[in-house]
């Protein structure tokens, strides 16, 4: 088992001022050690500051207190693969062009980046849809495009912000399964944010429960189960219920 720390988040707090000049504290003294090649799940209800924390980790938000350090030196936003909430695809670009974006700005040649994009589109099962616009495909497919785009950056850190939140249950299960498959094929460090307890238990090597106001890390769980995990297995249900109980408490 790898145990090296990949990202170290120490004493991170965040507050902002609203239009009426009232200060709100969102995050209070967050400390997380993300291990290399770990699948870490951040679980929390809506408005618990999960997205804010992700923006801080990925460098999209630089206005905070505390420290975020990477074991291999500093990183800018583009060195981390990000899958955004509600896809954030560029609607005027085709599926192919969306995935290609990531290499385009890294100065990769046309042929090379086309091959890369095709490879990742195939990985997420979207071969044949290269020339569709995002508005022409279903939500599940858009999500795959977003994942392919993030993977195409070939970063060893992936950050996913409620990627499956907008999908129906059936598609969601399927996507979770596929995500794990992809991750197991090519291991990398994943930070996965969700508000769905079952999703957290199904995916996570480790689950951190975010809660309170301002938010802190309330609990940590390490599911001791073989993959692929079964939603109906007694251990699964037991952990699910335990987390659900804590979830109520931190709200």
């Amino acid at each position, binding site marked *: 088992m790898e145990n090296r720390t990949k990202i170290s988040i120490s004493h991170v707090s965040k507050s902002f001022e609203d239009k009426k000049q009232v200060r709100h504290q969102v995050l209070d003294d967050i400390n997380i050690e993300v291990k290399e090649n770990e699948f870490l799940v951040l679980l929390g209800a809506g408005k618990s500051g999960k997205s804010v924390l992700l923006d801080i980790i990925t460098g999209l938000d630089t206005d905070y207190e505390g420290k975020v350090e990477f074991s291999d030196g500093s990183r800018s936003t583009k060195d981390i693969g990000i899958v955004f909430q*509600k896809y954030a695809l560029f609607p005027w670009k085709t599926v192919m062009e969306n995935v290609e974006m990531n290499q385009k700005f890294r100065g990769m040649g046309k042929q090379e980046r086309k091959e890369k994009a095709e490879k990742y589109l195939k990985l997420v099962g979207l071969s044949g849809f290269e020339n569709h616009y995002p508005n022409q495909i279903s939500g599940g497919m858009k999500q795959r495009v977003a994942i392919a785009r993030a993977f195409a*950056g070939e970063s060893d850190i992936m950050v996913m912000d409620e990627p499956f939140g907008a999908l129906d249950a059936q598609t969601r299960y399927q996507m979770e399964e596929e995500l794990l498959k992809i991750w197991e094929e090519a291991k990398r460090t994943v930070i996965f944010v969700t508000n769905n307890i079952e999703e957290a238990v199904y995916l996570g090597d480790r689950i951190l429960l975010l809660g309170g106001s301002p938010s802190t890390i309330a609990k940590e769980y390490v599911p001791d189960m073989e993959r692929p995990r079964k939603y109906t297995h007694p251990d699964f249900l037991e952990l699910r219920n335990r987390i659900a109980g804590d979830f109520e408490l931190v709200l």
Partner: protein
Amino acid sequence: MAEKGKKMIYYILPVLSIGILVVLWGVLCVQKPDIMPTPAAVIKKIADITVNPISNATLPVHILVSLGRVLSAFAAACVFGIVLGILMGWYPTFHDIAWPVFEIIRPIPPIAWIPLIILWCGIGETSKVIIVFIGAVVPIVLNTYSGIRQVDPMLFKAAKSVGAGDRATMFEVVLPASLPSIVAGMKTSLSTGWMCVLAAEMVVARQGVGFLIVRGMDSGDSALILSGMVVIGVVSALITALLNRAEVKLCPWRTEQR
């Protein structure tokens, strides 16, 4: 049975609608035969001015003159308006400085500029083009600006995450994202421009469709006025149809939604 009757009525109503319009015209002809020309007289007039020039120009030439003025002003308005809109949308300081001035000038209808512009530039082509420009530039500035302000913040994050720099963000994200709004602005701009050219030509011109209807008014030739109105209406409708086509072509991702 009732359903069938209903369907019949639905076929008859549009015909009836146009019928009413024609009858109204007829009533006016009978009531004021000295002013109101018959539809036949208008058609004859259109045919007449298509071959016989008025003020050294046949009808097609008058149309082309008006369109030429609109298009050259529109082209200038696009370039200037988009640049100004981008500057205001992208640089908050520039916006804060320029916006109040823009807000003072904006409510003045372009038509109200006509006297001043004529005083400045005389009654030649330049003043007409400038008047159309003033009318055409405002919607483009407004729509470019609001288009840029309304770009989904999520897309900025996404651009950053795929490593786009400032320039790339501008050209690959901000501009395409605001394109639908800019194109909508261009649509408004062109129809405003068409209205302004009429106004300018009506006030002072020797050629153009606006000149035609005023010539009709001055000489009491109502058939000429109505011919002019028909032509103006047809050209306006054509411009609108053309622009709707162009919109589909320019923003394919918008219209192919399911």
